[in-house]
């Protein structure tokens, strides 16, 4: 019989491999295709990591700070093997493993099977809106490992183990995804918590000494991880780029995934439930939280409210705090339920069975995974490939479609794609001015010698091009419309 952790791992994996989730993971935005394409380029040319842009005509030849080169390579290998389905498998394995690890951590910390599975499922529900086949799935896994290491340090105060584990984790994380910053934020919160403990414990010599030792250990680990984070192909420039991007109010306000959650969306119900359980735990259970736990709760709740894409990180980092509080105050019936679950699942011999089911699901029944033609310009791309003579010169494309077009039309360079930080504020503003038909909307088209456009049919720019002398609609269906400048 598999353990609850193994059941959870298998359940998440199978859900993600099945439809409609499988398609949603690759087709919710164009970034899965974008990362696959960049990884594929690196594999084909041997330019690992990629140093200059070859995908856009607006920034062609300009130096790139590759933030996710390692995950792009992994996705590209998976893509070579199984196409888009390969990307889904990598992401599904990462996500399922993350929440299985989280569940195991909760179980170890609380000893309460019922609470552990409840909080793990709640965390999965809150986080599931960001389950996409993109490099940030690596950050979920590393966040869970990072959190586990810090929680262990809280219990056993082993500075050496913390330093080794976090140092080793930093090295791949910094090359896989820029979400490594979440690890540093969490380290900073632990450091601040230790400072508060030091101040509060000044009247108690033993407590003060413990806090001082903890503070010294955390300071050392921060320095160590900081140095380890420089071991990436771009060195300090990677950090610089990330800070520049986060510092740009325009870009962080412009990107939909950096927006605060819209609670009218059904997708946000998991996060709402998470917030409700957090509030009820604080209000009814009234746990005695350490300064570090309190700070973690405040900082990550704030970051998740501020930016929707931080919700999975909130769930991963804060789940152990909630679970511990709930387990301490669990009523007798929950303890009885936990006892029954422990009797059933305590001794696990189901690893082999779960592994076989997973392998069968991944290998034996791979169904085709495609970009849905009702949302993506699949037919328009076919038309372009059938009539290459009509499409010479530079393209103007929709931002979200950029990644897909890199993958589907590698012979053409895009105007813009999901690498917002690479394109920078000035080009994104130009793109936005043209898309929104602001007064200077034609200037970017002239500046970048755009000779054809590929946009959603509902895009307002199509209406203007239809009236603009010298432009002609050469293709249109319900999804996409192509305008071409007459020579």
């Amino acid at each position, binding site marked *: 019989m598999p353990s609850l952790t193994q059941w959870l791992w298998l359940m998440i994996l199978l859900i993600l491999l099945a439809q409609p989730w499988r398609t949603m993971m690759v087709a919710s935005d164009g970034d899965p295709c974008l990362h696959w394409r960049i990884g594929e380029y690196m594999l084909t040319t041997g330019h690992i990591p990629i140093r200059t842009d070859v995908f856009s005509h607006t920034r062609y030849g300009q130096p790139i700070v590759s933030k996710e080169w390692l995950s792009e390579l992994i996705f590209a290998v998976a893509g070579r093997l199984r196409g888009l389905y390969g990307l889904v498998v990598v992401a599904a394995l990462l996500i399922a493993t993350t929440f299985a690890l989280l569940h195991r951590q909760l179980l170890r910390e609380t000893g309460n099977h019922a609470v552990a599975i409840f909080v793990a499922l709640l965390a999965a529900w809150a986080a599931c809106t960001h389950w996409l086949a993109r490099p940030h799935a690596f950050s979920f896994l590393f966040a869970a490992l990072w959190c586990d290491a810090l929680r262990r340090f809280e219990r056993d105060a082993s500075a050496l183990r913390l330093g080794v584990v976090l140092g080793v984790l930093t090295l791949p994380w910094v090359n896989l995804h820029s979400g490594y910053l979440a690890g540093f934020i969490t380290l900073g919160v632990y450091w601040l918590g230790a400072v508060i403990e030091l101040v509060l414990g000044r009247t108690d010599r033993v407590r003060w000494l413990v806090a001082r030792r903890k503070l010294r250990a955390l300071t050392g680990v921060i320095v160590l991880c900081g140095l380890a984070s420089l071991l990436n192909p771009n060195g300090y420039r990677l950090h610089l780029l990330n800070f520049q991007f986060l510092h740009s109010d325009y870009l962080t306000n412009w990107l939909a995934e950096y927006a605060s959650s819209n609670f009218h969306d059904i997708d946000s119900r998991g996060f709402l439930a998470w917030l409700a359980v957090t509030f009820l735990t604080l209000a009814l259970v009234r746990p005695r939280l350490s300064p570090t736990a309190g700070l973690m709760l405040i900082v990550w709740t704030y970051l998740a409210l501020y930016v929707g894409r931080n919700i999975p990180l909130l769930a991963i980092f804060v789940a152990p705090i909630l679970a511990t509080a709930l387990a301490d105050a669990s009523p007798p019936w929950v303890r009885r339920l936990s006892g029954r679950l422990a009797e059933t699942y305590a001794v696990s011999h189901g690893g082999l069975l779960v592994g076989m089911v997973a392998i069968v699901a991944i290998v034996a029944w791979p169904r085709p995974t495609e970009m849905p033609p009702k949302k993506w310009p699949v037919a328009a791309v076919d038309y372009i490939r059938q009539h290459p003579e009509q499409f010479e010169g530079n393209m103007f494309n929709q931002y979200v479609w950029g990644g897909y077009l890199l993958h589907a039309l590698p012979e053409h360079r895009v105007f813009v794609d999901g690498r917002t930080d690479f394109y920078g504020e000035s080009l994104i503003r130009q793109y936005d001015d043209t898309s929104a038909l*602001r007064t200077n909307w034609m200037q970017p088209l002239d500046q970048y010698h755009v000779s054809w456009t590929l946009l959603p049919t509902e895009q307002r720019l199509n209406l203007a091009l239809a009236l603009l002398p010298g432009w002609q609609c050469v293709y249109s269906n319900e999804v996409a419309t192509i305008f071409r400048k007459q020579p």
Partner: protein
Amino acid sequence: MKDTSPHTDARPHRWLPSLSAMIWITLFLGLNLTSARIVLISADSDAAWHRRFGEWMIQHHAIVRENNVLHTHQSSFVSMEWLSEVVYAAAGNLFGWNGVVLVAATLIATIYWLLHRQLLADSCDALLATVLVLVAMLAASMHWLARPLLFTHLLTLVFAWQLRGFQQGRVSARQVFFFLPPLMVLWVNLHGAFMTGLVLIAMYTLGSACSAWRKTNSYMKAITLAVLLLFCLAASFANPNGWKLHAQILSFLHSPELSNLTTEFASPSFHTVGMQGFLLLLLILGVTLMVVRPPLSATEVLLVGGWGCFTLFSARNVPIFTLIVTPLLGHWLTNFARTERRSPWWQHYHKWAERVTTFDRAAGNAVPIGAAILCMLLILAIPRIAGNDPVLTTEFPSRRYPTGAVTHLREHPEIVHGEMFNSFFWGGYLEFALPERNAFFDAEFYNVELWRDFQTMDEPKHGWEDAFTKYRIGWTILPVQHPLNRILELSPHWSLVFSNQQTLVFSLVS
């Protein structure tokens, strides 16, 4: 409600403003005399729209029952805030936009004055009460607009105070039955969000029932509150539209298009500066729950959780959440401060708090507030009586509203023909400033079909020309950066008849 804090009658310096009075005077004069008065009326154009309706009702001595300001929706109309519109319009008739600002500033000042008095009455020390009121002001200030919703903020505070007093045994059942149903009659005629009061009573009823079920209270309170809820519900039908008002509001709230209509019905965006105050309040609430660990009653859990949830759905609930949660925070923090007297920090705090509270008790309210009102009335009234120009000029700013275009259209009405198409944001302003022309759309939600047609034209999307034909649009008045202007510039059927840095007016070529 009486201030039950001790020594409230010890006021040897009645001419000196108490902290509550300072809050009132600062807000009242600050909002009237600084550029904040422009923001009050022009943050959106609803103030103009409400004034236009109010003026119509004053002129015709009747309640508005038909929409006569739009050419797209000239059918029966359920007015949700006729009384406040009349109040604003009457003030506007007396002192122009300064009069509208005067009403709004008085309401805002009174709300936070009352909140401060409530905290003091709840045994909060004056220092803590003042800090909490300042945080509440910061959180709610994004919705300080000269609109009927200010009446809802005031009445929410009064309802919450009365209900809390009743739950704590400070207010008798007779008192709440004497106060709240008549106040509900007033509320239902002042603003459409009167349902806030009903939700509050329902939460107290449910909370009391939970407490009774857990045997910490008797069922009598829950039954009394349930009866009060029925009385207030019955009172809410005392409006010119009867049950139709409730039906209109419920259908409005259930519409999926609602959150698209304006940002205030959307979830709060924590990227905006206006939300920093709300974040600060949430931070204080979170720290209080984690550090103070107050034992919350079922009602308090419902109030904080329920209104917190409503606020995450609609940013316009932030002030209501603030006004409901601040007294609870005051109560929890006061109890905590009383038990923490050993550490030097707390001793220092208590010393300061006692000094401030002593000063506050010695000072007065009525005299300084009366003096501030008198000064303000003199500033507004003397130029009017003397026939001079007003001291304070309060108008819609030309950098955000099409004031130049409106002046030009009044001087040259012949340049446009047919019906108007306007931007959403300018609808209310145009209804007020250009009453001889009917607007296409304003901030009110009329029906889904009109809203979708408006979106087709405003985006613009395919089919915008058909929609223009359907509504017989002959001219447009839109901000310069509006995308439809680019289409009209390229179209041979439209010609530009007015332009300045703010506005473009296009007319259909006949």
